[in-house]
């Protein structure tokens, strides 16, 4: 079993303990866990932690990974400079 102090989301500094507490409170969907712990909401947008989070949440609920609904993927695919978006400079 994962230790409480293990960091799951490095961008937002979210530990397994925080996620476990959310699960215990009854927030069992990934969308709820994201909103309540901020896991996956940082700079990498969950690209690093999504798979670990999915695996651990499934294991905690004794479900198969395929049974867990994924969070919404939001654009952009990778961070983009506002200046580039605005068309003022080259990235």
């Amino acid at each position: 079993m994962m230790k409480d102090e293990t960091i799951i989301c490095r961008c937002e500094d979210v530990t397994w303990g925080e996620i476990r507490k959310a699960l215990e409170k009854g927030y069992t969907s990934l969308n709820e866990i994201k909103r309540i712990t901020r896991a996956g909401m940082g700079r990498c947008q969950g690209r690093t932690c999504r798979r670990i989070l999915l695996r651990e949440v499934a294991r905690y609920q004794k479900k198969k990974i395929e049974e867990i609904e994924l969070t919404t993927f939001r654009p952009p695919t990778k961070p983009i400079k506002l200046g580039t978006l605005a068309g003022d400079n080259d990235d």
Partner: protein
Amino acid sequence: MIKKADIVIIGGGIQGCSIAYNLAKKGAKNIVILEKNTCASGSSGRCGAGIRQQFGTKMNCILALESMKTFETLTEELDYDIELNQAGYLLLAYTEKEMSQFKKNVELEQSLGIDAKMVTPKEAKKIVLPLNLEGILGGTFCPTDGNVNPLYTTFAYAEAAQRLGVKYYSFTEVTEIETKNGRILSVATDKGKILTSTVVNAAGGYSGPVGKMAGVDIPVYSQRHQILITEHIDPMWKPMLMSFSENYYFQQLPDGGILGGYGDPENEVKGGNIDSTWQFARTMAKKMVKLVPILKDVRMVRQWAGLYNMSPDAQPILGEHPKLKGFYLSVGFSGHGFMLAPVTGKLIAELILDRETSIPIDKLDIGRFERGELIHEPSVV
């Protein structure tokens, strides 16, 4: 699922949760919240996080001032850190017409005890150092405006309500509201039927369709609004920057991310569409880089959209429906539902339980549109 309830609230966002909490706090029992998705999955969790008191109508100023007072003690009251950050709102004016509207607004705000004041471009730059003053004639600043974490605030109300006995059903969609002779008999959901005589429509972007289920026409429509957020960077400035004529709002949040959006009533899609668009990101980036040029090297990490539930005068519609007894409306907030929820939730609870409210809201009834007594809010993004 429960078979019978005293009060059924449709919509588990900030309105529904605040109403439920305030009802339970006043001693009401057998309250149910029905949420088709999860808590704060709709507009409450998608909003811009800002809370302001600078408005152009007396009604909105009074409600917003009272709401801010509640926000100031909410972390303690609900025992959940909502991350209140009173960093101010700096509203910027670009035309003489806007300046004269702002002067009127500030007079009104000060007369009601809101600590807003006019600022010159020079003073604006003192408040927000990296500001590009091009085209700016002046503005207003209210230091006690600010932001909270809207997700935490909604969860805080939901959990506090449940501690007081409220039942919160997520993933439970209302399918029918059964009425007879101007009274409510029951609410049917995809998980079962609940007998009740009192229903609150707090369905935000979906309040129009919920009204139709009860056979009631509510003059609201939903419209997509979009937001983007950047990576966390070192603190650069604090207040929300907002303009009604240039149409933008953006702010650096306490965690360092910069969040912003604008309204586009003429081009944005109406209805339930909450996809994000590339056009929005490009236009918003242009607005941000123009006003704060050093943002050009800051990266956007995420964009999303939510729904404004628009009423004909951009003011909420509150109160019992005149043709359907026990059917209460808390809808049409037109983009200000999150920031007003602490006070409107309390007032709706008072209305249901006491038949009178501590702040008069009878002018915000649905009947005002038939009477032609609209209260147009001039200061909306």
